[in-house]
């Protein structure tokens, strides 16, 4: 396949065109806009399939990549260094797979949304945002440099803001969207700093150039505020990931993102928003490695995975459980990056996207059915559900398969990918003492995941209906093309063998003819930075001259290690796999005992561990920390300080002092008293207020000419500094 | 590209000079031969024989402005089209007329879009479905409310 603008550009331009057209016509013909959004999404998916087919079925080479650029803007030579930014595409196996996943998930979510949002007042405009959101994510995946990644990154931030706040008439939705926007902004600022650090060093932000610069040591010997530059930029970019993928200190926005409509949650949690952060870290993996921050990454991943899993234990809102499970699973991915399981982390990104999309859509299906006639709203609380599997058999099947997948049951995709991350974490833990903690946290989180997911399943679908009236009003589900078919399609892909030729992903229990079925771990490799030093960039339209260099990839059972290392690794992976299976079944068992047999009371546990329970209920006090400490103490502190000056000094010493003197002077002399009160006490206060009034009024007069004069003054000062 | 010198613009100056001379000259000459009997009544403006009421410089209907607005856009676009129109023949002769044709068509298309917009919104109608009168009334109502 030749990668011309004609067969790459439609992938992003079709959804974007749908956005542009729909933005204008949606008010007039919402039905048409919806159709257009779905059809363009389908076309985009077809194009992505072509790319995927070319990479996986035709070329089948681990090193193959397509890199086509044109100059976006060129700042010329600055201090002898070229400063330019290209625009173009960078496609390798990872992008191709991710592209397929994004377009596929987005297509399915589009279709499901036609069911879910059908009776919504803003049915059409929802699709406008969906199109833009998807287009932004596709653009991010296709991007060949950090700056264009940043552009789409921010575009996605805007879309998530609009979608989370889609029901803006609800107060919570508005606040949640604001929160998501502001929290991710913290990460974005650091990301931008990282981009600038890299750009100012090597004069380009292209991935290829960054890889080449790492290989040739262009980052060596440079420091920023005492930190080696490569570490600085790696940390900055990883902070971007932390913001976007809701990692440990900045995870607070993701649970609130469920204020949006459920399909948009599916899109945010599965295919687009959070995947972008992990994708960025994977893309910049050589930088992270060179910067030596993998341990930090592993810790952050482990802490996130564990912490979010614990919070998910006690959630009663079905979407909240899923939201925290997303954070937890993202923690796994970041943990995978930290322990060097590049391939496994990416595989978990894909598998998680599929089953989490399915979970959210299933949850949407459940919520949509449960309509409370008293409040005229949908029910999301699990305590009011129960026994729904009879009413919703298809949703139940889909959700059960996904739960198996996320809990890490054998034969399901989650097991394949998660087990590989945990196996590598275990391997690292055995080699380095410092890496024990993340591995242990990962294993505990796996147990918790299995538990809380089955808890959710049992509470929702099993047992007796706890809200009888609600149950009565719920219609029996019939198979419909835009409700159950998308779920069932996704369910099919929660099976593990699509991704791995072996049962565990570590090549332990192999299917026959494994060479062709281990495509995932064969094709997606850490970028070998040395290879990029020799590469000359190619412009759009030029034929690719590198085709002959790429060999077909071969399945390597040892994954590039020596025999002894491989043996050791296999041994450890065996242990890890067995542990994973035991843990998953154990989690299932606990949940079964608690919620089906009701042998163990959850209440006993929560009363036993009540301080921790309270901590979980308030989500480890992070919201409190941010709102009460940073915002209120930090920003309001300044305010309070000023207020203290006002009240503490001004009032106490001037006003109160005046009063004391007054009282004293009243006794001494009436004349003296009047004098002090009138001049200092009353007129003085008035005068000072008037003075500040004058100053403020002058600045904030709203008079255009005054602003213009200030503009002139600024311009003049600029000229004088310039000349 | 033909060179020229500024003498080509001489007649412009001369003709404008003639215009000034004619006006000033005729008025100066006339001053000596024509009567000059100013009277109070003569110097009032004509208002069908009645005493003029107020000044004429009151505010006019906004349709004048909207038409002028459409005009200035067309004027500017016309001014931009002139150089392109001039080189069309030359480009056509060297075989790259299509590019000019397409860019001209695009340009005219956008121009037409503006015209169609104004047409559809009723800006080109002199007698509109709304009037300044009713607008003022509505504004006054708002003020009261």
């Amino acid at each position, binding site marked *: 396949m030749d990668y011309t603008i004609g067969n790459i550009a439609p992938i992003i331009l079709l959804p974007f065109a749908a956005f542009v057209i729909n933005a204008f016509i949606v008010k007039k013909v919402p039905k048409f806009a919806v159709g257009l959004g779905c059809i363009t999404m389908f076309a985009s998916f077809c194009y992505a399939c072509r790319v995927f087919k070319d990479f996986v079925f035709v070329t089948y080479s681990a090193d193959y990549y397509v890199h086509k650029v044109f100059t976006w803007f060129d700042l010329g030579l600055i201090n002898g260094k070229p400063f330019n930014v290209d625009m173009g595409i960078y496609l390798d196996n990872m992008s191709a797979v991710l592209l397929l996943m994004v377009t596929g998930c987005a297509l399915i979510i589009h279709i499901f949304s036609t069911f879910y949002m059908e009776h919504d007042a803003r049915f059409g405009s929802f699709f406008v945002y969906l199109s833009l959101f998807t287009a932004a994510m596709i653009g991010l995946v296709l991007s060949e440099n950090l700056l264009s990644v940043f552009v789409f990154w921010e575009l996605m931030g805007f879309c998530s803001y609009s979608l989370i706040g889609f029901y803006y008439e609800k107060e919570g939705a508005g606040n949640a969207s604001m929160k998501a926007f502001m929290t991710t902004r913290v990460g974005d600022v650091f990301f931008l700093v990282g981009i600038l650090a890299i750009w100012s060093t090597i004069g380009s932000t292209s991935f290829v150039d960054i890889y080449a610069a790492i290989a040739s040591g262009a980052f060596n010997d440079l420091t920023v505020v005492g930190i080696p530059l490569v570490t600085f930029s790696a940390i900055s970019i990883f902070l971007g990931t932390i913001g976007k993928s809701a990692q440990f200190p900045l995870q607070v926005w993701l649970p609130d993102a469920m204020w949006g409509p459920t399909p948009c949650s599916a899109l945010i949690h599965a295919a687009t928003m959070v995947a972008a952060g992990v994708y960025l870290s994977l893309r910049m993996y050589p930088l992270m490695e060179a910067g030596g921050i993998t341990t930090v990454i592993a810790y952050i991943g482990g802490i996130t995975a564990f912490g979010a899993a614990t919070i998910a234990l006690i959630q009663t809102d079905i979407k909240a459980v899923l939201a925290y499970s997303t954070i937890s699973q993202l923690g796994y991915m970041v943990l995978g990056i930290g322990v060097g399981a590049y391939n496994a982390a990416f595989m978990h990104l894909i598998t998680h996207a599929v089953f989490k999309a399915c979970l959210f859509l299933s949850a949407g299906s459940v919520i949509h059915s449960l309509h409370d006639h008293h409040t005229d709203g949908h029910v999301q609380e699990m305590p009011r559900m129960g026994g729904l599997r009879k009413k919703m058999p298809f949703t139940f099947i889909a959700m059960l398969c996904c739960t198996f997948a996320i809990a890490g049951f054998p034969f399901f995709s989650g097991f394949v990918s998660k087990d590989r991350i945990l196996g590598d974490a275990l391997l690292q833990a055995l080699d380095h003492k410092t890496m024990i903690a993340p591995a242990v946290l990962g294993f505990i989180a796996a147990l918790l995941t299995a538990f809380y997911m089955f808890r959710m399943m049992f509470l929702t679908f099993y047992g007796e209906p706890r809200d009888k009236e609600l149950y009565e009003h719920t219609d029996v589900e019939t198979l419909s093309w835009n409700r159950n078919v998308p779920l069932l399609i996704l369910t099919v892909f929660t099976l593990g063998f699509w991704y791995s030729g072996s049962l565990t992903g570590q090549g332990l229990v192999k299917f026959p003819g494994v060479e062709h079925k281990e495509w995932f771990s064969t094709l997606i490799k850490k970028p070998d930075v040395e290879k990029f030093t020799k590469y000359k960039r190619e412009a759009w339209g030029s034929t690719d001259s590198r085709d002959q260099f790429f060999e077909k990839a071969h399945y390597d059972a040892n994954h590039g290690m020596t025999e002894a290392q491989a043996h050791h690794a296999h041994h450890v992976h065996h242990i890890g796999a067995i542990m994973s299976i035991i843990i998953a079944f154990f989690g299932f068992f606990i949940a079964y005992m608690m919620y089906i047999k009701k042998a163990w009371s959850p209440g006993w546990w929560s009363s036993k561990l009540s301080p921790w329970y309270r901590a979980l209920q308030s989500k480890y006090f992070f919201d409190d920390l941010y709102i009460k400490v940073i915002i209120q103490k930090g920003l309001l502190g300044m305010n309070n300080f000023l207020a203290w000056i006002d009240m503490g000094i001004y009032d106490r010493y001037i006003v109160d002092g005046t009063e004391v003197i007054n009282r004293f002077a009243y006794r001494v002399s009436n004349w003296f008293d009047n004098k002090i009160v009138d001049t200092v006490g009353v007129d003085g206060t008035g005068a000072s207020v008037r003075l500040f009034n004058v100053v403020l009024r002058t600045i904030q007069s709203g008079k255009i*000419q005054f602003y213009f004069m200030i503009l002139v003054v600024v311009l003049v000062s600029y000229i004088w500094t310039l000349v | 590209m033909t060179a020229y010198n500024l003498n080509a613009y001489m007649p412009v100056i001369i003709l404008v000079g003639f215009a000034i001379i004619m006006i000033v000259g005729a008025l100066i000459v006339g001053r000596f031969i024509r009567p000059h009997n100013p009277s109070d009544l003569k110097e009032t403006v004509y208002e069908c024989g009645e005493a003029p009421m107020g000044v004429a410089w009151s505010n006019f209907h906004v349709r004048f402005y909207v038409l002028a607005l459409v005009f200035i856009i067309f004027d*500017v676009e016309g*001014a*931009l089209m002139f150089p392109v129109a001039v080189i069309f023949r030359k480009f056509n002769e060297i075989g790259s007329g299509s590019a000019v044709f397409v860019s001209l068509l695009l340009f005219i298309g956008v121009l037409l879009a503006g015209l169609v917009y104004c047409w559809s919104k009723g800006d080109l109608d002199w007698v509109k479905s709304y009037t300044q009168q009713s607008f003022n009334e509505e504004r006054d109502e708002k003020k009261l409310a």
Partner: protein
Amino acid sequence: MISLPSFLAISFILFVSGLVVMIAKKNIIAILLGVELILNSAALNFAAYTRFVNQNLDGHIMSLFIIIIAAAEAAVGLAIVIRFFQIRESIHIDDATQLLQ
């Protein structure tokens, strides 16, 4: 006589006049007149520099687009003035100090 400094001087005078008009007058339309003067001085500068320094036609293109922008600016600016007048019955700039009606 016809040299770069003299053109710069003329455009400088136009610029300063425009600036003075923009600040001294309180009538919005008068302020727009000042804007036109400033835009003209800029366009004149472009044409002068392209004649005396560059000796290509890029400055002419630039001036052409300045003229176009000026026309667009005048159209939109005056529309705002008229709208403002319809609301406030005034074109005094100091009446336009509030964001809300």
